[in-house]
């Protein structure tokens, strides 16, 4: 077998996570001399912060999906729509392509993101050595797709702006929309707090 790979930490160096500058490990914790980012061997409290944000997101995921995101009224009748009922309505009215977009962005992606983050956090906690490269890929995926969940929030924003025809037709944003935006933002922060280098640290621990 080839010798274990040498990391910056083992060489007593530190690589800035933001601008990638490599410098000798300073005695005091400090800032990167080039970009000013705080220098950390590993993100401090990465696991705890990631869990906290993730659990908050999971709790808010319930009202986000149970409360209406839009309340539309036309000619005296009003109708509340949750994310799911909106998707079903689109499906029934034949707009299956749009239904699919909203289903993937608003239901599938946030759920998948939370499941992946739980899996990554548990795997790091259990000092797993299972396929670190694939786990890093999963992490990259959650960072990449998370933003697209915001699409429903923007649809609501556009609907309330355009459908404003007095008694004829009107669309109001419902409380579910605010909860849903919070879920998207919290999961983005949770992914950002997770330090993928922790996945690889376990590999070196076991080599010793």
């Amino acid at each position, binding site marked *: 077998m080839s010798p274990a*790979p040498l*990391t*910056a930490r*083992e*060489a007593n*160096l*530190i*690589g800035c996570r933001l*601008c*990638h*500058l*490599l*410098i*000798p490990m300073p005695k005091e914790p400090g800032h990167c*001399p*080039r*970009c*000013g*980012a705080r220098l950390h061997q590993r993100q401090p409290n990465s696991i705890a912060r990631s869990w906290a944000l993730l659990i908050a997101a999971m709790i808010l995921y319930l009202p986000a999906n149970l409360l209406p995101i839009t309340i539309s009224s036309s000619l005296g009748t009003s109708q509340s729509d949750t994310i799911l009922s909106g998707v079903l309505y*689109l499906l029934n*009215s034949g*707009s299956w*392509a*749009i239904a699919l*977009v*909203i289903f993937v*962005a608003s239901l599938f992606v946030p759920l998948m993101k939370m499941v992946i983050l739980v899996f990554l956090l548990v795997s790091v906690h259990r000092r797993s050595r299972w396929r*670190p*490269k694939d786990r*890093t890929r999963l*992490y*990259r995926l959650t*960072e990449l797709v*998370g*933003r*697209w969940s*915001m*699409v429903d*929030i*923007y*649809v609501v*924003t*556009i*609907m*309330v702006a*355009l*459908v*404003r*025809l007095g008694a*004829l*037709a009107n669309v109001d*944003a419902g409380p579910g*929309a*605010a909860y849903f*935006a919070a879920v998207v*933002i919290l999961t*983005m922060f949770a992914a*950002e707090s997770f330090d*993928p280098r922790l996945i*690889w640290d376990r590999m070196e621990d076991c080599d010793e």
Partner: protein
Amino acid sequence: MKSLMACHECDLLQRIPPVSEGRVALCSRCGAVLFRPKRNSLDRTIALNLTGILLYAVAVSFPFLALKTQGFVREAALLTGMKVLYQQGMSGLALVVVLTCILFPLIEMLSLLYILLPLKFGGTLPGAARLFHSVQVLKPWGMMEVFMLGILVSMVKLAKMATIIPGTALWAFVLLIFVLAGSAVSLDSHLVWEKLDRRP
């Protein structure tokens, strides 16, 4: 140490690989993108961001969609929806939309010009490194392309109940999405950091 770098995703220490323009340097252990040098990176990024500012000005000042039903016409500009959300008591939500679709993209374009234009002529303006740091932190929070998808979804939804008239801003908006994507591709942050490095 100048010839070494640590992977930002797995911390592996490795020799900086010689990579020609247009190719990608990947981490040999986890496959993370270390950097991707670009041909004429500075020129292209500057040109795209200047174009972007112009398109942005059009995209925010003109209505992007109008809805026509039974004699009523209702126009909406980019900021209309955020104003209505605010009036409906959803100020937090309005703020999120303003930041992600209006403010962050503008800050990013202006900051890049502030940083890159002087670099092209061999200088730096005060605070450039600090600003480039902020640009990279804010990057995931600018979501104009997601808003574009939101416009498309809304158009399909609304087409059932009324006639939709695309406005001037919509075309500017579509072009802007391509320009921003081009800017993201042509920007070589590795190169910018090296040029911004003023340490002895």
